[in-house]
C-alpha cells in the first residue's frame, strides 16, 4: 500500500476497524480467520487473545478489548504472522498501531506494565541522548516498574550480570551520546504519535 506520513490520526474513543486498518496500511476485512498467524506465532500461547482473535475483534469494531489485551504487549514483532498471511493482512503492523493507541489512551494491560515501561523508557532515553545509554535505560526502567507495580524483585533481577558484563568490557558507565542532540529533540517534537491522547477529565 502506498505509504504517506499524512496518516489518519486515531481519534479518541474506540476506533473502528476501517480506521485501524488504514493506519496499519492493511485491510482488516480481508482476514478470513484461517488462524495461520496464530499457528506460527512463537508467543501465541502466552497471549490472552490469539492473533486471529484479535483481528476478529477489530473486524467487529471491538477495538476496546483489543487495546486492553495482553496480546499486543506479548507480541515480539517477529513478523511471522504478516509474512505468512494468505490474505496479506499485516498483523504485525496492526499490533504496532494498537500499541500506539493503547498507550495514548492509557489502556495498556496492567500485567504488561513492564513491557510498556521499557518501551517508554527506551524512547525517553534516546530522546535525551540521541543514542541508547544502556545503564541509564535499565536504571530508569527498573525504577518505573518498582514505582508502578511495587515489584521490588525487579531491582535485583540480572544484578549478577553487571559484574560479568563489566568483566567482558561490555558495560559503559559513560554512555556515548549523539553530538547534535538538538536535532534529535526536534525530530521527536515533530513526530507526534498518530494516536491522540484522550482528553483529561
Amino acid at each position, binding site marked *: 500500500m502506498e505509504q504517506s506520513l499524512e496518516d489518519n490520526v486515531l481519534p479518541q474513543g474506540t476506533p473502528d476497524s476501517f480506521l485501524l486498518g488504514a493506519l496499519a496500511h492493511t485491510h482488516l476485512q480481508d482476514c478470513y480467520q484461517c*488462524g495461520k*498467524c496464530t*499457528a506460527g*506465532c512463537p508467543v*501465541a500461547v502466552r497471549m490472552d487473545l*490469539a492473533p486471529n482473535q484479535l483481528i476478529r475483534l477489530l473486524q467487529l469494531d471491538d477495538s476496546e478489548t483489543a487495546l486492553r489485551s495482553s496480546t499486543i504487549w506479548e507480541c515480539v514483532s517477529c513478523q511471522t504472522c504478516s509474512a505468512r498471511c*494468505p490474505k496479506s493482512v499485516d498483523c504485525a503492523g496492526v499490533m504496532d498501531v494498537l500499541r500506539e493507541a493503547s498507550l495514548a489512551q492509557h489502556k495498556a494491560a496492567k500485567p504488561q506494565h513492564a513491557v510498556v515501561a521499557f518501551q517508554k523508557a527506551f524512547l525517553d532515553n534516546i530522546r535525551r541522548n540521541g543514542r541508547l545509554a544502556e545503564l541509564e535505560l535499565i536504571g530508569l526502567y527498573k525504577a518505573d516498574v518498582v514505582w508502578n507495580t511495587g515489584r521490588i524483585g525487579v531491582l535485583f533481577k540480572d544484578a549478577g550480570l553487571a559484574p560479568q558484563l563489566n568483566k567482558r568490557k561490555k558495560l559503559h558507565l559513560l554512555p556515548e551520546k549523539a553530538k547534535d542532540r538538538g536535532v534529535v529533540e526536534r525530530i521527536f517534537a515533530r513526530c507526534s504519535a498518530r494516536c491522540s491522547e484522550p482528553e483529561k477529565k
Partner: protein
Amino acid sequence: MSKIGVFTCWCGENIARTVDVDEVAKRVAGFPGVVCSLNYKYMCSDPGQAMVREKIASEKLDGIVVASCSPHMHLKTFRKAAQTAGLNPYLVEMANIREQCSWVHHDKPSATAKAIDIIRLSVAKVRNDVPLRPIQVPVTRRALVIGGGVAGIQAALDIADAGHEVVMVEREPSIGGKMAGLSETFPTLDCSQCILTPRMVEVGQHPRIKLYSYSEVEAVDGFVGNFKIKIRQKARYVDVSKCTGCGDCWSVCPLKKNPSEFDYGMGMRPAIYIPFPQAVPARPVIDKKVCAKLIRNGCGLCEKKCKAGAIDFKDEDRVVEESVGCIVVATGYKLYNIAKEQPKASLAGYGEYGYGKYKDVIDSLQFERLISASGPTGGVFKRPSDGAIPKNVVFISCVGSRDNAKGMPYCSKICCMYTAKHTMLYKHKVHDGQAHVFYMDIRAGGKGYDEFVRRAIEQDGARYYRGRVSKITQENGKLIVRGADTLAGTPVEIEADLVVLASAMRPADGVEELAQKLNIGYDEFGFLMESHPKLRPVETNTGGVFIAGACQAPKDIPEAVAQASAAASKVQVMLAADELTREPEIAAINEQTCAACYTCLHTCPYHAIERAEVRTGRGVFIKNTARVNAGLCMGCGTCVSVCPSKSADLQGFSEQQIYAMVESLV
C-alpha cells in the same frame, strides 16, 4: 420507390385502449413509401397473418412493418408469414407499440403520437432493408475430443454412440486421466478403476472412435464446422499395430528404477512401460530420456525379446491431419506444485510446508496412489521415507487454494470431500491410526456429501481443527505440524508420521497455448472461459468449440461427466445436418475502402475478422484488407463502431438503416 405495408395491431384492447389505432393507420398511410396501412384486432392470429400475406401478394409489397408487440415476441412469426407470401423475411420489421408504448403510457394522445413515431422509425428502417439469405456453412460431421480423462471419455462415447465419428487426442501413453489413478471415490467409496476402466475399454474398441494416444494437438485451422487439426504423434518406439501387449519387453527391461508418472513418483517403472495394467491402448512406450539403447545404443534387450518385432528404435514424431466439425476440450487439471519453484511469477510455493524437502510430506494424488489397492505399495499403507505404517496422519486443506499470497484465491471445490474420504480410507487401513485435518471451511454441497464428511468425523474419528498450518518441520523422525485451532483460539502442535497436502487444482500444463490455438478465452489462472457462466456453460466464444471438465474450473467427477455429456449434446446438435444455418445479420467489410488498420480484428470478441488481400482476377496484389469470416461472426457490430472509415457494416443493422431511423425522429 419502395412499396411498404404497415399493419397496426390492436392486440385486442391491449394496444387499442391507449393508442388510437385508426388515427395511427391514417397518419402512417401518409409516410413516404407506404402504400397500404391497415389495422386489425389480432395481427398474429391466423386471419391477421392471412391479411398480411394477402396484401404482400396483392400490393406487391417490398417491405412490411407490423406495429404490434416486441420483436422478441413475434418477429419470427411475421417473417415466416412474409416468406410464405414470397417476401424475403429480412424485409419485415416490427414496431413495438405494446410493451414500449401502450402498456406504459395512459395518456391516449401522447401514446398515439409516440406510436406513430415508433412506426415512422420502423418504416425508415424497412425502406433501407435489403433481402438477406441465411448463411449455410458446410459441416464435417466428425468431432475432436482433446483429453482422454473421464470428461473426454464421456464426451467421446456420447458423440460416437450418437453415430458420429470421434477423434480423441490424449497426451499421455494411456487414456484414463487423473481418475484412473484414484483409489476410491466419494461419496460412495466405490473403486475408481472398477467404474472407469470399462469405459476406457469401450473407447479403445469403439468403431467410431479414433484414438491418438501419446499425441498432442499441434495446430488448429478453420472455423465452426470445418476445422483442420494437426496432431503430433510422439515417437513411442513401439509399433502399436504389431505389438500384442504381452509384456515381455517391460519384464526384461533392466532399467526398472524410474519414477512412475502414473504413481506421481511413489512407485517405479521400467524404461519401456505401460503406465498401469489397464492402460488403453495396452501398448508400451519407451522413455527416451532413460532408455540405454536410445541414449547410447546399448542394451536393446526388449527388441530381442519381442516376438512380434514391434520395437522400433528409429521411430520419430509424426504429424497427421484430421478434419472435424466440432471440438470438445477436456484437458483436465493438475495439482499446484507446493514446492518453492513455480512455473509462473504470479504463483508462490509453500517453503513453510517443506514439500520436496521432507519425503513424508506428500500431496493428495500421491496419497491416492499410496492407499490404492493397485498402488505401488500393493494396498499396504506405508509412508515413502522408510515404509513405516504412519500412525498419525495430518491432512491439510486449502494448500494453495483460497490463498491470495500464493496466487490462487479460488476454492478448489473438491478437496473438502476427498480429504474426508482420505481420512476414512486411512482409518479403514490403519485401525489404530489417527487422522487430523486442518481446514478453513467444510464445503460439502452435493448429494450425500455433507453426510459423508460427518461420517468421517463421527464414525471414523477424524479430528478436525479449524485453522491453517503455519509451518512443518522435522524432529527425531517426526513431522512437527504447527497449526491453529481457531475455534479454541489456540495454537496446535501435532507430531505426525505423514502429512498430506490438499493441493490446489490448476489447469493442465500447456492449456493456455492450446487455448490460443483454438482462439478461446482463459482466465488469469488458465481455466478456460465458458461463453456465458449461466446460460452457455459448455460453449466457448469460438463457434464449434466446447469445454468439459476441470479445464473450465475445479470440479468433481459427477460434474465433469455431466458437463461432458452436455458438451456432447451440443456437438450432436451441430453435427445433426450436413450444413449449419446461421442468421445472416452479420458484419461485412467494404474491401475497397478498408484501410487495413485492423482495429476491428483486435476488437472482435469472436476472432471473426481475418487479414486478407485484395487481388485482381489474375492474382496481382492490390491492397490489404480486413475480412469477416461468416462462419464465426455473431453479429454484435462492435467492429462497425471502431472502424474509422465505416468500411465495416452490419447487415440488418446497417449504418444506412440506423441513420435513417435516427433521422426519422427529427
